[in-house]
């Protein structure tokens, strides 16, 4: 990537407003995202999370306010912003008719990188898609599709990545795979802005969490800070029942391959 590193926060948003006709979706949104952090924008459906992401990725113009990504203003330096980011939208933006490798090569070529083939092979390996590389993407499972989608966003190592509801519609295993991929990204110093409606996802991944509600950020802080907003913890004695998710992973195995209790049938007496 030729993008120069500009000091200051990776993402800066000030007084962002956006309306669709009568509907005021954003009514003055402010937040910063530090470099290398995972920042979760939490909100219910229709809270305006996608609108924020679209404005930051230069797909939509704000009505008022300012936003910069990697030090570049999204309105006046859109081309520099696009050099600095990758967008993984709400629906996996992959080409169904091409195979996995061709999808990655396509993005590498469009980013004007040298050795698109090698970049594609490396990412395929990193996201455990090497075996599926020459298969049409239309035959992929939801989780594979999402992994390919995220891999496509990593082509060229952009310093800032937007993930708009990356795990919506995925099964629990695929969700865990995506989470691992996101954690790896942040370990390498990539700044991640993540939107989600799942509270546990924000809790699992984010360094900072902001809650977008009725067009404004109503809370912004680390998980510990957010927890302090509530009354102090009371001690109660509750029997710890396994959740259905615990049961699911115990049976199928957390990696989705061989579970410890693979052959067990409930109630079967061997």
């Amino acid at each position, binding site marked *: 990537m030729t993008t120069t590193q500009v000091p200051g926060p990776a993402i800066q948003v000030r007084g962002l407003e956006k309306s669709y006709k009568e509907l005021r979706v954003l009514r003055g949104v402010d937040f910063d995202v530090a470099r290398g952090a995972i920042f979760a924008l939490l909100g219910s459906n229709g809270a305006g999370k996608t609108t924020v992401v679209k404005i930051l990725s230069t797909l939509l113009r704000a009505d008022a306010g300012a936003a910069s990504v990697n030090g570049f203003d999204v309105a006046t330096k859109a081309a520099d912003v*696009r050099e600095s980011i990758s967008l993984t939208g709400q629906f996996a933006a992959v080409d169904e008719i091409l195979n996995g490798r061709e999808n990655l090569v396509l993005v590498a070529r469009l980013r004007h990188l040298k050795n698109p083939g090698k970049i594609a092979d490396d990412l395929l390996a990193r996201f455990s898609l090497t075996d599926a590389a020459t298969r049409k993407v239309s035959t992929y499972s939801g989780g594979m599709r999402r992994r390919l989608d995220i891999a496509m966003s990593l082509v060229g190592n952009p310093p800032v990545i937007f993930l708009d509801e990356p795990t919506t519609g995925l099964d629990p295993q695929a969700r865990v795979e995506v989470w691992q991929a996101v954690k790896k990204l942040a370990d390498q110093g990539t700044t991640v802005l993540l939107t989600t409606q799942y509270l546990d996802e924000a809790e699992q991944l984010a360094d900072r969490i902001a809650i977008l509600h009725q067009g404004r950020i109503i809370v912004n802080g680390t998980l510990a800070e957010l927890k302090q907003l509530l009354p102090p913890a009371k001690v109660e004695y509750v029997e710890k029942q396994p959740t259905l998710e615990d049961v699911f992973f115990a049976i199928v195995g957390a990696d989705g391959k061989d579970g410890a209790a693979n052959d067990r049938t409930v109630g079967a007496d061997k």
Partner: protein
Amino acid sequence: MTKHFLGDTAVLLGRSLTHVSRSVDTIITTAITPIAMMLLFVYVLGGAINSGQDSYVNYLLPGILLVTVASGIAYTAFRLFLDMKSGIFERFQSMPIARSSVLWAHVLTSVVANLISLVVVVGVALLMGFRSGAGVLAWLAVAGILTLFTLALTWLAVIPGLVAKSVDGASAFSYPLIFLPFISSAFVPTDTMPGPVRAFAENQPVTSIVNALRDLFTQQPVGTDIWTALAWCVGILIVTYVFATVIYRRKIS
């Protein structure tokens, strides 16, 4: 950003040509309607039509070629619509590429796919007895007019591709275009038509384009028809290009 226009367009053109090569049925279905019409008119209705030429298939082919293009461009609207819906369009738009190359790639793919369909249709016409003494220059002129016509209609197809709400909406616009040749000199000479119909037929773009192609095939002097045909093609091209571009700008900003 525009410095990458040619490179980006070439990469994206490669992508959608791969789509075409992996769904050869799009080429075949594009060619099937005009071929069926040609069979119907030559072997069923043609005997009763007095075209003023010895061979009816010779008379018919120019109009059939325009029908081919009109049915082929629906796939451009279709492919563009799918890109818009699938999110890959937004991925491209958020990348450091020349933004207009996304549209141009679809338009050029349409030209290539339609030229292939046209070759298939001409091949079938040759089997049915179509003959032309046209020289290389005349054939090049035919190819040029058809390419221009394809470009003009493709930019028209871009508009529903960008604004349609459903797949059906994206491709439905091409049906009236397929029927436009019926009220022209494509199938029968216009002088048997009643006054108002004849006035429409003689002054709509298909007639002048068909007449120009027919004159080129039969080695007649093309006269003013070719200039009227070119004016129509260029006029439609400019108007649809401007509209499509304005709509596209609105979509992406």
